[in-house]
């Protein structure tokens, strides 16, 4: 499961992810981090069965948690060229048996890299 963690000016200075990982013994995989002086946004991957516990701990430590559900989508413009395949940091795209671009949305971390490179503008985030 992917979680979006929002840190405010206080929490952004604390090693909260490490604390949660040590406390629960659950490995937390950081997929994307945008951390500034006064706030931060981090997307992490955690095992589904531990999600409740981890979410509660983050909340207790003052971090806002949202489950990432809105994932990348595509329209009819796609010609299955595959340019997105090597751009995506989490390998959401792959060419299947038919050589069509297959999207494994559960791996999407919202970085938008693919949207910017798609030559036919076939990729977008549904609102």
């Amino acid at each position, binding site marked *: 499961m992917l979680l979006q963690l929002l840190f405010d000016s206080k929490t952004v200075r604390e090693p909260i992810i490490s604390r949660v990982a040590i406390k629960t013994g659950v490995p937390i995989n950081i997929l994307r981090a945008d951390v500034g002086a006064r706030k931060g946004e981090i997307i992490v991957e955690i095992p589904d069965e531990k999600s409740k516990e981890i979410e509660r701990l983050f909340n207790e430590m003052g971090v806002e948690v949202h489950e990432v559900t809105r994932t990348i989508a595509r329209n009819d*413009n796609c*010609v*299955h*060229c*595959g*340019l*997105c*395949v*090597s*751009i995506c940091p989490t*390998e959401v795209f*792959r*060419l299947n048996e*038919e*050589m*069509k671009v297959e999207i494994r949305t559960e791996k999407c971390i919202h970085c938008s890299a693919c949207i*910017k*490179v798609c*030559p*036919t*503008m076939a990729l977008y985030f549904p609102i």
Partner: protein
Amino acid sequence: MKTIEQINEKIREGSVCVVTAKEMKDIVSELGPEKAAKEVDVVTTGTFGAMCSTGVFINFGHSDPPIKFRRAWLNDVEVYTGLAAVDAFLGATKPSETRENYGGAHVIEELVFGREVELRAIGFGTDCYPRKEIETAVSLEDVNQAVMVNPRNAYQRYRAATNSSDKVLRTYMGTLLPNYGNVTFAGTGEISPLNNDPEFRTIGVGTRIFLCGAKGYIIGEGTQHSPPFGTLMVKGNLKDMKAEFLKACYFPGYAPSIFLGIGIPIPILDAEIAKSTAIRDWEIKTTIIDFGVPRRDRPVVREVTYAELKSGKVEINREEVRVSPLSSFYMAEKVMKELKRMIEKGEFLLSLPVERLKGKELFKPMKQKEIRIVREFMTKAITIREDSRIEDAAMLMINKNVNHLPVVDDEGILKGIVTSWDIAKAVTKGAKTVKEVMTREVITVFPEEPIAIAISKLEKYDISALPVIDSKKRVLGIVTSETISKMLGV
């Protein structure tokens, strides 16, 4: 041995045996070329990729009073009008003057969709063509001719791209991630038309082809034709094209372009041709070149086969790098199947070339007026050792009247650089030796590089001098922004 006439007769009778290039590989390996040539009459090949050298000649008919176009635009994309009064050439990569991510390719696509596009033109106002301007809307139905004529399509193979620099590069080969972050490649390899007839025995001037769903023709070798990097010049009627087999696109940071579906039927006249259509991806070689070097002759990173590229991963400097195609194999397959269907139904007859394409051709670089190179601007470098004292560095700068001292070892190999600013820092820090304050990652140039490269490096990194080195990193001299501006008089 078969003739084209015999094959066409079979097409008319409905008894022709057509297979796609993909299917043919297995047939030949199973039956051998002799038997395969007896069984199979036609092999359909296909490609579907971004082909920048694409455009459409349009004749709009005459207005009343008539106009001779001086300049004209379709949906704010300028077309070329240096032709007869109302003839124009719409090029795929011409960007719109008003809309982002939109260009000639998109206008072509809208026309094929059956939509109206806005025509705006200004005229010369001559005695025979008095009108000075016009604004109207036209669709494909309204114009007399709309003929796609593409100077260069269907590349036999193409150099794959990667990027050694530390910046993201946005190119016609797609976005290239820094530090060899990915590889992109174009072309469909073993199913691509020219790879299946590398001797140009059946693919030549006059060969009837599938061009975006319409019947088209090869009208010659394409520009930059240089086998095994062969290309084709083709034409076809835009009015007969199908939107499914053509797609406008836009490469960020580069330009608009257009995906075209091109299929070429290869008549299997003898075992020799059957054998050539059995070519496999692992036999088709190309190179991966480094777009991180902004030169015409980009360095080759490694040789590679289409089989490796298609596997999705290649190794560069012992690291696995992910690969993206730029051509759609899915659509290329559709092209081959559609052409196969058209031939089987008797809708598409084969034609013999009336002239063969050149089997050898040189792709020459542009003749340029003298290129000025770094060596001409190079001055002697005053160098220093890394264990030298700061005082000595300062003294050297003052005595020799320089601001930059490349730091070298006993062999003259570059280790770093110190500037007068570094000396000032050394004083405030209390540093004793050059080693403590020098910059280790030095931006350098080679003596044979064009001076334009040195200038862009100076600007990009906001520095004022570049040590000039050889391939062993030995310091040969230095170029400074001061010398360059003095010599160029800017």
